[in-house]
């Protein structure tokens, strides 16, 4: 019996699929280029293998009698099946390579392919981290060259290269602050970290992990730190302030110098979250603003690919006060070449320890350095200016139909609230999902928390004006439709044309299914089997 419902492999089926999309049912459940794809565990056959390996020679086994007894349970697929599987999966993803990806705070800029090429060069991509240092002089030179760029661009005297991502860099920076307080004998007394309510979630999470209590600092009506409130909060119990600049509202903290001066006068340190460095790289040096340490997300500002959520890299630049506490390892250049300072080496200062095995995210260093060298000092400045210009252009072109959260020029992100959706029955979420049907990845939603129904748009410098104009046109059209008051149901039903419609996140959390098991998915989704029945 052939049913007229969705019969895609392994899928629960329901009649609503065809009705809501207006499409005609297909035998396979596919819709042209949108191909339904089972899990690898539903595809494998015993005896199939995607690699050819030689027969292992007979040896006297030395496994202490601990040979694995049963089967692992991995499926067997041939190479063409593997290629098709992942190709089909890839076609269910939106990506920077496809168009505008305005995810605020994430800096989804162009990822040049030369970066991929140089990271894979023999003699760079294939080096072992524990080769004798005499055999990796070029690799150490590469890291040192990137370190030089990062220090010069930020106007800071030192950099810790090993943190694996932004949050890891935050941990490194805050440990360095704790170490500096230790050296002053004040760690027990300074237990408070100040952070604005608009901070990234990683900031309070990092501070709390290190045993600090987090005290929020209010913002003024211009979206900046309330300087008077900050000064009132500073005291001998404060260790540091964690501040993003440009801040998460997309605004430059105009009183930043007054803030850093007050923080230092109170004996505290200034941790700057560098997530938004792309607005100012090559144009403003954080060292000139009184920053003590700042992590740099190489996967944001310096275009190492986001890769579906990592890997990242989060080097931390350090002021003279914090540099003696940088973690192992670091690179030293002397008359004979480069060498690594590693645990146990006699060094000046009191290193805070070690944050990860080996020497940092080398693959990301190669890519970031290629990006930086390609731009040069002139290109980096131009890129920051174009990023800021593009965000302001989007803001200006939408301000009559959407509601900017704050007045005045923004930096590289345009922040709107949901005021323009008031009484329309359309929420920020609905609005974002409708963007998907227009062919765009939504902006960051509901962040920062201080703005109601926030929509944070970061166009980056990578989009041509024609593409920004089309994006603006799409958002204007959606805003006008929402405000017409008759389209709420349409918005609630979006997206309609994506590989999946809205997913039931409550169900996922209430009854977590976190892996495939043979019993999870009774067969029956196979069209051939169903046809045979």
């Amino acid at each position, binding site marked *: 019996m052939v049913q007229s419902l969705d019969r895609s492999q392994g899928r*629960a089926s329901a009649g609503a699929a065809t009705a809501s999309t207006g499409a005609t049912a297909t035998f396979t459940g596919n819709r042209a280029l949108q191909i339904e794809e089972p*899990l690898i565990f539903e595809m*494998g056959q015993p005896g199939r*293998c995607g690699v050819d*390996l030689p027969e292992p020679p007979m040896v006297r086994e030395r*496994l*202490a009698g*601990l040979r694995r007894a049963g089967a*692992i349970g*991995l*499926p*067997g*697929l041939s190479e063409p099946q593997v290629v098709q599987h992942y*190709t089909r999966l890839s076609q*269910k993803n*939106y*990506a920077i390579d496809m168009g505008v990806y305005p*995810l605020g705070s994430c800096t989804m800029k162009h990822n*040049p392919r*030369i970066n991929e090429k*140089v*990271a894979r060069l023999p*003699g760079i991509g294939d080096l072992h*981290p524990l080769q004798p240092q005499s*055999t990796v*002089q070029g690799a150490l030179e590469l890291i040192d060259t990137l370190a030089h760029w990062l220090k010069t661009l930020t106007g800071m005297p030192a950099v810790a290269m090993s943190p694996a991502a932004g*949050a*890891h860099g935050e941990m490194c920076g805050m440990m360095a602050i704790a170490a500096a307080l230790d050296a002053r004998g004040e760690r027990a007394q300074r237990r408070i970290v100040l952070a604005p309510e608009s901070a990234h979630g*990683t900031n*309070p999470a990092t501070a709390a992990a290190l045993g600090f209590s987090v005290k929020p600092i209010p913002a003024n009506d211009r979206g900046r730190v309330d300087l008077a409130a900050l000064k009132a909060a500073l005291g001998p119990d404060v260790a540091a302030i964690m501040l993003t600049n440009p801040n998460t509202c997309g*605004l*430059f903290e105009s009183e930043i110098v007054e803030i850093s001066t007050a923080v230092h006068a109170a004996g505290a340190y200034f941790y700057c979250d560098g997530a938004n460095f792309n607005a100012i790289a*090559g*144009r403003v040096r954080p060292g000139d603003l009184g920053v003590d340490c700042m992590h740099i997300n190489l996967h944001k500002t310096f275009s190492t690919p986001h890769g*579906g959520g990592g*890997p990242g890299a989060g080097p931390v630049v350090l002021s003279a006060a914090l540099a003696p506490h940088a*973690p*192992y390892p670091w690179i030293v250049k002397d008359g004979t070449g480069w060498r690594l300072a590693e*645990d146990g080496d006699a060094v000046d200062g009191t290193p805070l320890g070690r*944050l*990860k*095995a080996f*020497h*940092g995210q*080398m693959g990301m260093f190669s890519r970031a350095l*290629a990006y930086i060298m390609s*731009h040069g000092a002139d290109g*980096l*400045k131009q890129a920051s200016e*174009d990023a800021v210009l593009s965000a302001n252009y989007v803001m200006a072109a939408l301000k009559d139909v959407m509601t900017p959260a704050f007045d005045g020029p923004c930096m590289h992100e345009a922040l709107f609230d949901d005021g323009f959706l008031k009484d329309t029955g359309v929420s920020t979420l609905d609005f974002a999902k409708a963007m998907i049907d227009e062919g765009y990845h939504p902006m960051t939603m509901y962040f920062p928390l201080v703005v109601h129904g926030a929509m944070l748009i970061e166009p980056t*410098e*990578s989009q*041509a004006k024609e593409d920004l104009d089309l994006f603006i046109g799409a958002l204007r059209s959606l805003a006008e439709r929402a405000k017409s008051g008759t389209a709420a149901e349409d918005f609630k039903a979006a997206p309609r044309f994506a*590989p*999946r419609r*809205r*997913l039931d*996140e409550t169900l996922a*959390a209430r009854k977590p299914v*976190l892996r495939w098991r043979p019993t999870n998915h009774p067969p029956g989704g196979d069209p051939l089997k169903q046809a045979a029945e």
Partner: protein
Amino acid sequence: MRYLPLTDADRRDMLATIGARSVDELFRDVPASARLPGKVAGLPDHQGELEVERAFQAMAAKNVSPASAPFFIGAGAYRHHVPATVDYMIQRGEFLTSYTPYQPEITQGTLQYLFEFQTQVGLLTGMDVANASMYDGSTAASEAVLMANRITRRHKALVSGGLHPQYRRVIETTAHWQGYTVAAAAADAAGLEDLIARVDKETSCVVVQNPSFFGHVRDFTALSKACQAAGALLIVVVTEVVSLGLLKPPGEMGADIVVCEGQSIGNGLGFGGPYVGLFATRDKHVRQMPGRLVGETVDADGKRGFVLTLSTREQHIRREKATSNICTNAGLCALAFTVHLTLLGEDGFRRLAELNHAKACELADRVAKIPGVEVVNDSFFNEFTVRLPKPAAPVVEALAKKRILAGVPVSRLLPDDPSVANLLLLAATETATEHGMGPLVDGLKEVL
């Protein structure tokens, strides 16, 4: 500049729309004292692709590529053959240039491969549930200790002398600044350590490695029972994940948390990173687990789909009450891992492990015949420890001068322990050949 699409005419038009005379006006909130008169001084200007590539080739030429020399280095990072399909797949723009799947309707590709990855990690380790990856093995080990502290509400980790010394240092660093205790056992080169007597009512967890840093293969079933009796958790670290193709998995030994360095599958050596941490545990502990998790659900049409789930553990929701401050993970390295493991499948993965063990057995037998050289291990997977008649570091350096990359002198990682000065770690994977083993054995004979 080839990456910047805006023309001067575009910029003028856009400024006109904004109502600003110049881009400087947009930066007017920057304090005057921090405004640079031009670009940052002392740095070169932009370059073409050819010039950039030449600069990298010049740096690469100053290194000795493992492909160009006999190579036996391991100690937490292993050289394996990665099929061409893997590198092709991870360079598809739809994977490479997408971000964390916050919008599941248009990121089902990433979400499905992470769900498959979680399942594969659960199968390999013999555990119930795995997360969507961590930065690497060392940071995953540190997060595992924090998780055990949360679960047991105790604050003392007992760390084996068979744990990779840099992993131990990462755990100790976190412990120092986050305020808990680490009791570290002495380096266990002989593989005879017994930690059972040291597990007490204050112990939150015991951290062991299998095979150990020195290569020994151990069964931790008795230790897991001792942990259970004392209310502590057993954390098993695996730095060579290929070993799980041949060895009894930690889940069958009673491990509560298993963390692995996943680099060996799909990911090149890359001078130490980026790698991929695997993290698996029992169902009952899932809500204390750090990192992202992908779960199955259905969409509005009832079709199966995947989403990030249980995010109430994470920093963007919980802020200062989060289980971890981690945001980014190792998505693309997890993709490389899962593509390679899918290519291997059950038969290929097991055969790869057999080959590794066979190569290492062959190397051990040959090295043992060199006068004055003693193979320390009775058991190992693809890496073992040898005792040389003199300090290992200068021996390795002398062999490097002959373009032989001979292994890791243990003293590089344990510089303060004189008892390990003569010890050398040697690893042999499926990439080892007669063209490598012969020169290594001859070279060792010459320099000893």
